[in-house]
Every structure is written in structure tokens, then in C-alpha cells.
């Protein structure tokens, strides 16, 4: 039942299917698979309609996988999203350094927990599934998810966040099994991919709400998401969510791994703003690159989330931030999870700027770029040449032109 490497025969077959599909469609209008796939194949693992074409894209069009087979960052098409769950096949991808997605046989996979513990233990996947499981909905968002003036769509500006239901064992339960010793303060979590990507997190976080997950959206975690086992560090920047998790070492200090070193900051405030995501939201419709067909009624909709907890309030402005109205929360609200919001809106053809603002259960409010600039005592123009300080949770403006076209209004 382990995932196999991409099979050339399957690849050629699917190419043939696609080629045949064109011919079939023109003549009969049948669905493309109908003629070439057996009934058994059609029901074995369902596919979406061929009319649905939403896809992930590599960041800045950098080939991924590249010529060496290394997978770099790939974005989720948020503009087409509904509800709060990202389909596993559309979940964004990021890897340490850029690495090859490993092909791991779950029967061979082990998780070792050791270091400053009373009883080091090694677990098989089957053993991990014999612990009580929890299922939680959480977003994962890469630190690199920042909006730039040259970005066109919400996939470009915000596509490095995704949300899934994750199933697994609480890390705190596993750490209690091994018995954390006095003086321990950090854990180093390591993956099994060829670079053995590892990161340090505080024991306080490890014991709070971290999850060692084997399930994603009702099935095993996908290989690109860490099959057979990954760490969830809810609310923290993406790279801490170690994929292909194979080892956890309990230690007494910050270990300064390759990942840690790459994300350090000298400024204490920036370091703290980088660690955990602040309250954030973005309108996914209407958003950059979309086109309103004409005057009339629309639903402004989008996603809000926070690394600090549950979303308490989302406001929408249709006049560039002069006035704000409360949006409706449309769907379930979970801590550290995407939350769907919406609002009825009548567009009469006027040029306008749409934006959303999130407040979380801690009372943290999503800032505008101007507010962030004021806090750090820089001009807003600073962000034309620099990223925002810490992770970017600033308000995203979309400009609706009088012809109904929608554009990124970050300048």
C-alpha cells in the first residue's frame, strides 16, 4: 500500500487518455474518461470533472520539480476555493532547501523520540495508530506568503496557505510516554527526506497543541505533504511543520539547525512576528485577475485565519478602508484554521477598492501596511523594495475597475 514512484506506463496511458478525450469530446460530448477507462478504474479513486481546471502553480514560475528533481514552492488556487478545506491535491507545497519528495514505505517507517527523556522510544506507524487519535482543522502557511505589487492573483499573493483536517496523535501524549526530563526546553524535529530537514520548537509549544499527523482530509497524508507522518505546529510558520517526520530529539537549548539559521532575525520584535502568524484575511472573490460580468448582486467572499486562535470577527471595506462593515462568518470556526466569510454586495459599476480585516480571539487586529510601517517607523514606500517585517499578515486591497476587471492594489 506504499505509494509507488510515478509510473511511466501510467503516465503514457493518461497522455493517451487526454489525446483520446479531445476526439471523443468533439464527436460525442462524452466525458473524456468514459471511452478509455474501465468502470472499475472510474470508481476506484474519483476524479473531479474535466470542466474544473483549477491548478497549483510554482512560485515565480520557478520550475518545480526542477531539472534535479527538487520540489520548490507551489501555490494553492485560492481564487477558486469554496468552504474552508483545501483539497489535498491542491494543498500548497514547500520543502526544506528544495528536496525530492521521498517514496516511503509506511511499513518500514519509524518515529524515534529521544534525547532528554527517561525512556527513548521508537514507534511504527501501526503503533502510532493504536494511540487515541485527534482530528483537527488547521491551516499551514509558509513564511514566504507575502503580497507584492507585481503579483496578479490571490494565488500569487496568498497561495502559500492551505487548510486541512489533520488526524493523528498529540505530540504531548507521545512526549509523556517517553518522559521529558527536567531542564529540557526545546525539541528538534527531523524529516526523512534526503536533506533530513529539521527545525527547533519550544517545548511549551510542543506540549500545547502540536500533532503528529498521519491523516489528511479523511485519508493518509499525501506524499507531498509528508506521507506517512508529519508534524503539525498549529499557527506557526510553515517550515516548522516537519514532513516525513522520523525523529524528535528533546534538548535543552535552541539547536540552530539549517532551517533555524535560515529564519533567524536579530530584531526581537521581528523574530517574534515571524514565529507565529498574526490575524490575516483575504478576499478570494472578487480578487486580482477576475472579471465581474456586469452590474448587480455579488457575494464578496474570502478566508480569514490566525495563528493566535479562532477568528472572532471579519470586516469588509468597499471604499478603500474609509468605512468597514462586519462580514458574515459562513461555515465552521476552528482555532488556527481558515474561516470562510462573506457579504452581499451590489456593484453599480463604480471603481472601488475592496479589502477585509480580521480580528482574532486574542483581540489581535490585522494591520494595514501603513499601520505596520508606522509601528516600525519606516515609510510605506519601504515595502516597495523590502518584505514586511515578520510574516506578512497585512490587509490586501483589490481594485475593481469600472469595466469590472479586478487588480492587485498593493503599490
Amino acid at each position, binding site marked *: 500500500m506504499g505509494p509507488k514512484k510515478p509510473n511511466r506506463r501510467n503516465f503514457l496511458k493518461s497522455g493517451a487518455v487526454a489525446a483520446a478525450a479531445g476526439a471523443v469530446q468533439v464527436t460525442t460530448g462524452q466525458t473524456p474518461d468514459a471511452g478509455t477507462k474501465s468502470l472499475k478504474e472510474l470508481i476506484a479513486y474519483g476524479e473531479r470533472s474535466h470542466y474544473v481546471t483549477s491548478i497549483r502553480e510554482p512560485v515565480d514560475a520557478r520550475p518545480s520539480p526542477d531539472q534535479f528533481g527538487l520540489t520548490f514552492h507551489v501555490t494553492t488556487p485560492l481564487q477558486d476555493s469554496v468552504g474552508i478545506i483545501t483539497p489535498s491535491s491542491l494543498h500548497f507545497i514547500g520543502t526544506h532547501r528544495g528536496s525530492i519528495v521521498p517514496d516511503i514505505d509506511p511499513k518500514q517507517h519509524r518515529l524515534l523520540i529521544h534525547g532528554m527523556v527517561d525512556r527513548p522510544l521508537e*514507534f511504527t506507524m501501526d503503533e502510532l495508530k493504536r*494511540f487515541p487519535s485527534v482530528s483537527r482543522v488547521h491551516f499551514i502557511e509558509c513564511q514566504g506568503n507575502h503580497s507584492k505589487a507585481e503579483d496578479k492573483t490571490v494565488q500569487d499573493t496568498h497561495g502559500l496557505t492551505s487548510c486541512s483536517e489533520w488526524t493523528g496523535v498529540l505530540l504531548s501524549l507521545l512526549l509523556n510516554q517517553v518522559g521529558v526530563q527536567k531542564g529540557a526546553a526545546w525539541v528538534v524535529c527531523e524529516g526523512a527526506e534526503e536533506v533530513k530537514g529539521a527545525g527547533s520548537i519550544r517545548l511549551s*509549544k510542543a506540549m500545547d497543541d502540536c500533532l503528529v499527523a498521519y491523516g489528511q482530509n479523511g485519508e493518509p497524508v499525501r506524499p507531498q505533504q509528508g506521507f506517512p507522518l508529519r508534524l503539525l505546529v498549529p499557527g506557526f510558520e510553515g517550515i516548522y511543520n516537519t514532513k516525513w517526520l522520523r525523529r524528535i*530529539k528533546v534538548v535543552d537549548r*535552541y539547536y540552530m539547525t539549517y532551517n533555524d539559521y535560515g*529564519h533567524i532575525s536579530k530584531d526581537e520584535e521581528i523574530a517574534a512576528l515571524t514565529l507565529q502568524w498574526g490575524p490575516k484575511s483575504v478576499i478570494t472573490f472578487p480578487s486580482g485577475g477576475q472579471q465581474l460580468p456586469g452590474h448587480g448582486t455579488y457575494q464578496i467572499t474570502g478566508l480569514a485565519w490566525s495563528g493566535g486562535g479562532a477568528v472572532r470577527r471579519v470586516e469588509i471595506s468597499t471604499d478603500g478602508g474609509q468605512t468597514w462593515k462586519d462580514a458574515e462568518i459562513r461555515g465552521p470556526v476552528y482555532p488556527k484554521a481558515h474561516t470562510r466569510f462573506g457579504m452581499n454586495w451590489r456593484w453599480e459599476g463604480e471603481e472601488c477598492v475592496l479589502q477585509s480585516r480580521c480580528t482574532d480571539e486574542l483581540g489581535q487586529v490585522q494591520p494595514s501596511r501603513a499601520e505596520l510601517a508606522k*509601528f516600525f517607523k519606516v515609510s510605506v514606500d519601504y515595502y516597495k523594495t523590502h518584505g514586511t517585517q*515578520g510574516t506578512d499578515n497585512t490587509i490586501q486591497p483589490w481594485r475593481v475597475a469600472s469595466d469590472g476587471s479586478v487588480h492587485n492594489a498593493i503599490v
Partner: protein
Amino acid sequence: MRLFSNPLRCLILGAVAGFGLFRVARAQSPSYGLGTTPTPAEIHAWDISIGPEGKELPPGSGTANEGAQLFADKCTACHGATGWGGPAPMLIKPATKPQKPLPCLSPCIGPGNVMALHSPYATTIWDYIHRAMPFGQEGTLKPDEVYALTAFLLYKNGVIKQDDVLNQQTLPQVKMPNRNGYAIPDWKPGAPRPFPSER
């Protein structure tokens, strides 16, 4: 209080009470009896983490001159003959500014992010070369080779002298230029971030 007048009875009661407490503690954190206990040798084989104090560093040593040959043999195909300008990230800072931007290390924190200069601890370089290099043959370098390559990169970036010997003792002592270049934020459950955005 006749009950407690007998020392023996007192001891027994104490033991029973102690056992009860123990039971409560166990009930809050049950042991599921799952997993196997690895041998110290197994843990040693898995444990490739090298902390800033270098406690896990294996015996061995290397110098920049030894590293130069290894670098030519194993690294230049991706990182360039001079340690920059190849398809892989820059490892040696060029003396003059290159015409076009060079690939930085990923995670990328800006141009000029040369690991041997930016990392606050030399142990990070040793750890990373050992676990993740050379590409496609990760984990094949012997400790002496990793010490030598680390010495070569640190020498070429002006951090150590050409004849400095790196080993278990000297590597953690290397004074990296960015030694004090990082803050470690505290974290507590439910604590807001430092950005004051209350309205």
C-alpha cells in the same frame, strides 16, 4: 489521634496514601505500553543533530587545505569552481560584486546569505554538510571530510586561518561573525504577538 500514634501504622498509611497519589498521576498520563526501546547504538546511528555546543560531534579533524581538494572533487559541479556562480547556492562570498544576483540559500533571507558567514555557529555548517551533502550522496561523507570542508568554507570566507585545525574541540569555539545576530522569541500558549494593533 491514636491512628497516627503507632509509627508502623503511620508508615503503612503513608505508603497507601503515596500509592494513591501515584495512581492518580498515572491515570492522568497513562502509559500505553506501545513502542520499542531502541538500543544506545541505534539512537547513536539515527542522531545526526549537532547542537551549538558540539556535544554530538564525532572524533576526527580537518583543515582548509584538505578541504580544498574535497571541494574540487565533490562540490564544484553544483556550487561552481569558486564557490559561487553555479546552479546551487553561493558558498563563498565573491571578492567583487557579481553582475547578476546569485542563487541564495533556501530558506532565502536575502542576497549575500552565505551560510559560512550568516550562521551564528560553525556547528550548523558541519551538521548540514554531514546530513545533506553532496546532493544525491547525502550522508556519505566521513567525519574527517566534513571537518575539512567546513574548514575550507570558513577559511575562504575569512572566518578562520588557513592552517587552523577543526575538530570536536575547536569547531564549537569558532567565532562566527554573526554570532550575536539572532533573537529567540519566547512563546506561551495564548499570548498575542508583540504588534500592538488594538483599536
